């Protein structure tokens, strides 16, 4: 079985944007084992 998440999240194109609102970043790598409740991204 497989679960697929699709979601909107903030992105930024310039340092100014980043200062105003940080962009979304994944904190995982392909092939990682992950447990329910652990962060996928921030």
């Amino acid at each position: 079985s497989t679960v697929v998440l699709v979601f909107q999240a903030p992105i930024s194109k310039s340092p100014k944007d980043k200062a105003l609102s940080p962009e979304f970043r994944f904190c995982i790598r392909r092939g990682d084992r992950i447990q329910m409740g652990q962060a996928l991204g921030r």
Partner: protein
Amino acid sequence: SSSSQGNSFLVPGATVATIAMLGVLHARRLYDDKKVEEAKEKGIELEFQPDAKATFLRLLPLRSISRLWGFLTSVEFPLWLRPHVYRAWARAFHSNLEEAAMPLEEYASLRQFFVRTLKEGSRPIDSDSCCLVSPVDGTILRFGELKEAGAMIEQVKGFSYSVSSLLGASSFLPMIAADDMQEESNGQENTQRDESKKSWWTISLASPKVRDPVPTRPMKGLFYCVIYLKPGDYHRVHSPVKWNVLVRRHFSGRLFPLNERATKTIRNLYVENERVVLEGQWQEGFMAMAAIGATNIGSIELFIEPALRTNRPRKKLLHSEPPEEREYEPKGIGVMLKKGDEVAAFNMG
């Protein structure tokens, strides 16, 4: 007398030949798996290679096989046998029995054991309000940002599927899309707004990044993450964020296996298999979660809608027919879920 002598040779002969054949197939499989692992270590990515096995799988009654498997695994074991069976399962599929919420004797069947809950505190939820947590235990297959207009997710190198095929067409999101379009700073006339029958996907993916006129509001991108659950993993699905589930869609499709081999050889695996899609909104906008079934784990139980039945027998399978859809009440609010709330479970068969 000669006939009975023939039979006495044939039966053990056929058994030995079958065992030998299975042994050869297993050895071949182990060899292939080793090659795949070696390739991965060298950084070589798997490529899509359709084969005869994939064609053969299309001919098999996988839904019936799945339901039969569900029936067999529902058979109750005698009390004394239960710990032995579940320990064997745990050894074979690397499950951690220490985490099981109940003593092993209390799971009457393998099916019950498979969807076991965990002890309190086994899965701490990352409480950072900005973070999105994994809804399941599993292996990260793919993740990234959907940048191109087609919004394709790569199944493996050489084959991709579209997000709109996976999730289906949204009917409740055009209002959000219209709001987004109003925020476009370049002032271009949005001819798509009038096309009210077009799905949100069509609109959003044509212009996936929208800059707000108010500089304090960020641009939004569309991201995805694909997580594979092995047979030994905890098979309950939780909420990845605090969100409102507005719509549920049930696609009654095939039930191909979803293992690594299958992703490499079966085209459109994720968009052909039976799946339940939840769609709604979180603090950053759109959120959708698709739970995709497989042959051995064919049915999906939805805790927010216990009446939903999946993996049901059908006289004829029409893959082109639209999904069965339900909009949750109250309209526009739907079902509110907190981060970590239990949403669904994958059942055997």
